[in-house]
């Protein structure tokens, strides 16, 4: 797995280090998701597959800038890059997608719904917008417990901004001045629905003012912009600046899920600047700036592919959930669980 960047020695923004780090997380995410997609088409994956292609820069920059162990990160369906960058073990997605009994969800929930809440990464429920208030609560707990300096970040799509849950939670965060960073990956579609049928404002970042919070609007395919903006937003939240709303303009470079060809996405959008592939852009930039040699780039590629293969191979050998061993206990208070004829 890619190494983490050494802690920045000066207050100057360590662009090269961060950029390279992010690039490697993006690469890992892309290759892992490619592997998952081919497993999906081979019928090896149970349940849906939703991909982050085109959103890796935005997601990785966020995940990387958070500090695992201190901060909270509530990813959504296209945040493989951010998850890995935040510190999710590669085996977690591999096991979950492959239906292993040993993954964090033990076959009870799947794929994008994985998480480790007690380690700062809630396991999303499907209902869009619903995780934002959960992160608020995790931050409130830190405030009660005197654990200062923590930030909580969560991702949503353009579509999720239309949910009442999103609105209520962002407003609560603003009222409580919580160190919340909400990253909106505006990928121009919610499933098949274009933004014109989702909202009527120019830029979703313009919602920030109405909540009394700080808003940022960036090109989500530009890794440097993502890194610098999340650095600023997270620092500002950490320093007591209250909630931050970061909107990244980008394009979903895949169907809604692996089952969807996304044929409704018009070519005109694909040729817009925000329709470019952030991974390609990042690689070109690295070459351009000579931040890494072609050899290094190739080595990373191989390294990433190998770690993906190892994780997948491990997960494929795992046992699947055993329905006979399952005790069907939805309560921690086991003595209050009813058995009986009703089931």
């Amino acid at each position, binding site marked *: 797995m890619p190494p983490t960047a050494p802690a920045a020695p000066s207050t100057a923004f360590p662009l090269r280090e961060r950029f390279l780090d992010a690039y490697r997380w993006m690469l890992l995410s892309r290759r892992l998701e490619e592997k998952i997609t081919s497993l999906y088409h081979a019928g090896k994956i*149970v*349940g*849906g597959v939703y991909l982050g292609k085109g959103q890796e820069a935005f997601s990785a920059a966020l995940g990387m800038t958070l500090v695992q162990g201190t901060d909270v990160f509530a990813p959504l369906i296209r945040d493989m890059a951010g998850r890995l960058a935040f510190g999710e073990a590669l085996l977690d997605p591999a096991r979950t997608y492959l*239906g292993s009994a040993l993954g964090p*969800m033990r*076959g*009870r*929930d*799947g*794929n994008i*719904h994985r998480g480790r809440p007690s380690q700062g990464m809630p396991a999303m*429920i*499907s*209902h*869009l*917008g619903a995780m934002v208030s959960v992160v608020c609560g995790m931050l409130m707990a830190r405030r009660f417990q005197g654990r200062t300096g923590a930030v909580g970040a969560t991702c949503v799509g353009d*579509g*999720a901004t*239309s*949910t*009442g*849950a999103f609105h209520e939670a962002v407003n609560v965060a603003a009222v409580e001045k919580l160190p919340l960073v909400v990253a909106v990956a505006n990928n121009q579609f*919610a*499933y*098949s*629905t274009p933004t014109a*049928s*989702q*909202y009527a404002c120019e830029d979703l970042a313009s919602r920030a003012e109405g909540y009394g919070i700080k808003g940022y609007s960036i090109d989500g395919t530009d890794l440097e912009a993502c890194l610098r903006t999340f650095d600023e937003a997270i620092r500002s939240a950490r320093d007591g600046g209250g909630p931050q709303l970061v909107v990244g303009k980008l394009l979903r470079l895949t169907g809604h899920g692996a089952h969807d060809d996304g044929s*409704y996405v018009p070519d005109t959008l694909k040729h817009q600047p925000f329709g470019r592939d952030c991974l390609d852009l990042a690689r070109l930039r690295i070459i351009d700036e000579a931040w890494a040699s072609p050899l290094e780039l190739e080595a990373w590629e191989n390294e990433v592919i190998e770690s993906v293969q190892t994780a997948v191979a491990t997960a494929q050998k795992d046992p*699947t*959930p*055993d*329905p*006979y061993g*399952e005790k*069907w*206990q*939805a309560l921690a208070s086991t003595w209050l*669980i*009813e058995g009986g*004829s*009703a*089931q």
Partner: protein
Amino acid sequence: MAGPGLHLAHRRRERPVSITYLEAIRAAQHKALTDDPSVFIYGQDISTFGGAFKATKNLSRDFPGRVIDSPISEDAMVGLAVGAAIEGMRPIVEMQFADFSSIALNQVINQAATMFWRTGTACPITLRLPSGGTPGSGPFHSQSMEAIYSHYPGIIVLTPATVGDAYSMLLEAIRLDDPVIFCEHKFLYYHLKEETLPTESLPIGKARIARPGKHATVVTYSAMVHEALRAASELSADGWEIEVVDLRSVKPIDTDTILGSVARTGRLLCVGEAFPWGGVTAEIISRVTSEGFHLLDAAPVRLNSKDTPIPYHPNLWSAHRPTARVIGEALRKMLKF
């Protein structure tokens, strides 16, 4: 609005090709849009995309402006439908999955369901809920929410188990002057096929004897009808004749048909896919034992899902919900007494 019995008056025979449960739902919407200019459909991705399950495929092409993509705002979707219904429209709302209707609960139970009783203004809305479990769908794309909606006054809750009912009950639902929760089972969408669409059908509120029998009655609905039928034919090898009652509508419940069946068989098994506390199976047993206590020769039995969220992994999922095997076992045990 058609009264009881009148509801199929104007139907003509549809072209005789093999049609799935899902296609029947699409056909019913097509017919409703054709017959009644006050019908429109509102939901996520239902317009040109044709819906997550393609239940509205081509409808926006055939009925421009009447099949509208909504934002991801289930509360507002139902609120909007209620407002339109006040003004004489007959909106159909498609939830992408039944599970997401939890967001709209308030507008359903407090706004739509109370409208007629409070104000005397009818509220003819139909909420289509793609319901029930399929392998790999997990806790949030598998729920059966009929118990939640049926508990509240002012709502009709339908659970079609056949292609024919998917078609005729949806058509009738749209014509009713009340809010209807239409629980269409995703497991049946593609599996279930019939040759033609019905030209006649039982009215809403009537249960159907899906298989006649005399040794025990299974009362069930939606996808579980097919598990029960499978169990019944298995038991027939041993000479047991199991009667299967398909409720069709879980609110109202056709108690008379159930009592009639139990009067014949003396034994009652209730099967539902929903969670075990309360719900349809409890309501049925409660009614039968209250109103037909003397008809029972043995204790009634019920089967529901396990009392946990619905698991994602197919291994767990198939153990979580009742199946033909489990139903068969329960019947054999019951028939011993």
